[in-house]
């Protein structure tokens, strides 16, 4: 995979505070990469450095093989979409979109033509003469998108662009942006703290924590094979159970829980027998049965609570030593508190994480 953008050992300090620490990241041309993490994890700072608004304290940012640290923002040719949209309040929608084209000295005819095309693309042709303040949040968002795309930038950077929209609109825009990405072959770096947004849209997700990337991979990888406890907890919901490794055979490990139960779990990192580890088990991968079945992992538990949540049934369980949560399909039967059940899950649905 040819690298288009390269962050090479980037470190950024704000005074004594280290916000990005010795970070390496490569992004391919045409790729959609999400930077996902809680606020303060350094993801936005990284984006701001790529856009040229901030300078790394040390390290290089390369675009197409050349270092761009010294290139001022206005010569970087990157389209930025901000969370607050940052539309020019004193210009009409059309003038906003024409702005980058004017900066590049395009003639009037071509400018008009491209503005029209960009407005068509985001379905706002009727609003060309409106002021940004006269638009709804979703419309402003689309103007910001059109403005960032109209000059065909080399990279599109998005800083939580959907954060201010309501849920329904946000989901629609997620699909629209994903569609634009595919159609136009854009290279997109997308910052978000919303894990479902990152999973929905991205080719790859980089999970940030405290200025470092904890894990980078496809949405499936970061969800199903979390490398660290932080990733397991930050993306989706999970059961974390403590135990001690007894044996490792290839990609599987035998783990003894503090309750004494034996679990067979998939393992990706290096763990050694005798080591204390966590097991991550996604709630929706847990099955409940009334009799012990032949699944490889089966824990005897008692139901403490069960809540109907429309699309699933959420059951809280108490094993001898650990609470557990199971999400069951809508068609599952109800479980009354106090019922004794067996929680079963496959070895592949369980992951060993070094603490």
């Amino acid at each position, binding site marked *: 995979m040819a690298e288009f953008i390269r962050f090479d050992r980037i470190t950024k300090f704000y005074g004594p505070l280290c916000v990005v620490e010795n970070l390496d990241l490569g992004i391919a041309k045409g790729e959609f990469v999400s930077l996902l993490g809680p606020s303060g994890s350094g993801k936005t700072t990284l984006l701001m450095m790529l856009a040229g608004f901030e300078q790394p304290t040390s390290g290089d940012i390369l675009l197409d093989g050349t270092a761009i640290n010294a290139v001022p*923002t*206005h010569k970087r*040719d*990157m389209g930025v979409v901000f969370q607050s949209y940052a539309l020019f309040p004193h210009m009409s929608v059309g003038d906003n979109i024409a702005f980058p084209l004017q900066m590049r000295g395009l003639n009037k005819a071509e400018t008009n033509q491209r503005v029209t095309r960009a407005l068509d693309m985001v379905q706002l042709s009727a609003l060309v003469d409106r002021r940004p*303040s006269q638009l709804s949040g979703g419309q402003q968002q689309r103007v910001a998108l059109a403005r960032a795309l109209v*000059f065909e930038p080399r990279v599109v950077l998005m800083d939580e662009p959907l954060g201010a929209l309501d849920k329904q609109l946000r989901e629609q825009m997620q699909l629209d942006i994903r569609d634009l990405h595919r159609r136009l072959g854009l290279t997109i770096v997308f910052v978000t703290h919303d894990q479902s947004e990152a999973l929905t849209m991205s080719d790859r997700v980089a999970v940030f924590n405290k200025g470092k990337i904890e894990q980078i991979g496809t949405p499936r990888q970061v969800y199903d094979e979390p490398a660290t406890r932080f990733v397991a907890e930050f993306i989706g919901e999970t059961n974390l159970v403590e135990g001690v490794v007894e044996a490792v055979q290839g990609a599987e490990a035998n783990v003894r829980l503090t309750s004494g139960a034996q679990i067979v779990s998939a393992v990706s990192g290096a763990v050694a027998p005798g080591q204390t580890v966590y097991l991550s088990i996604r709630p929706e991968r847990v099955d409940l049965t009334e009799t012990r079945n032949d699944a490889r992992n089966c824990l005897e538990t008692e139901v403490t609570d069960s809540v109907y949540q429309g699309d699933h049934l959420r059951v809280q369980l108490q094993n001898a030593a650990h609470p557990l949560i199971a999400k069951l399909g809508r068609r599952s039967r109800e479980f009354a508190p106090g019922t004794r059940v067996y929680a079963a899950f496959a070895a592949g649905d369980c992951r060993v994480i070094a603490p």
Partner: protein
Amino acid sequence: MPLKIAKATFATLTVLFLVAPLIAILPLAFTSSVILTYPIPSWSLRWFEELFFADAWRRAIVNSLIIGAGTTLLATILGTAASLGLRNRLIFFRGSIRTLFLLPMVVPAVVLGVGMQVLLAGFGLTNSYLGVIIAHTVVAVPFVIVSVTGALSGIDERVELAAQSLGASPTTVFRRVTLPLAMPGVLSGAVLAFATSLDEVVLTLFVAGPNQRTLARQMFSSIRENISPAIAAAAFLFIVATVIIGLVVVISRSMLAKRR
């Protein structure tokens, strides 16, 4: 219920106390009498004539306009530039510098006047238009600073960053984005600077010579020595101008608000 009536009475009386004096003076501008009392014997425009054609008043009006224009220009340029400089959070002593800029609003005018008279005499600037303009600019600048920094702080910094990322150089960002957005603040600052100059008496008493006698200065000595309904005519013009200026400020503020 009695509380409600008490409240309404109190509010009405206070509104009257605040506004009535200004309204009471208005009809007297049109009196034909030479004394400033009610009832008005008959209506006449003679005091406006006096204002515009009597030598002392006419020259005072012209002086006020010259000095006001000079002050507005100087205070707006200095104040706007300084407000732009104050935006940078990296400036050392930013808070102290800002306080210094606002302090002329606080320092008693007589104190400043004494110092200014001594200083300008040293420069040979007493009894000169430049001297009066400089003195007025000192007290007008804080209004420009307050108004322009207010407008600038309302600008979302990301809008300027966005312009940069869309290919605008720093100068272009300033010309196409920052300045247009700050303009209402600059304009209202300029209006306030002009109004400050127009109303300034104390400094003028200290630094201006007979040739720089402003309208406010003329009104001051007229009330003190020889009050005539020309004062009421001048007050009428002032109040009308205030209402117009007030409307301009309100409208430009609401323009500013609408853009956001």
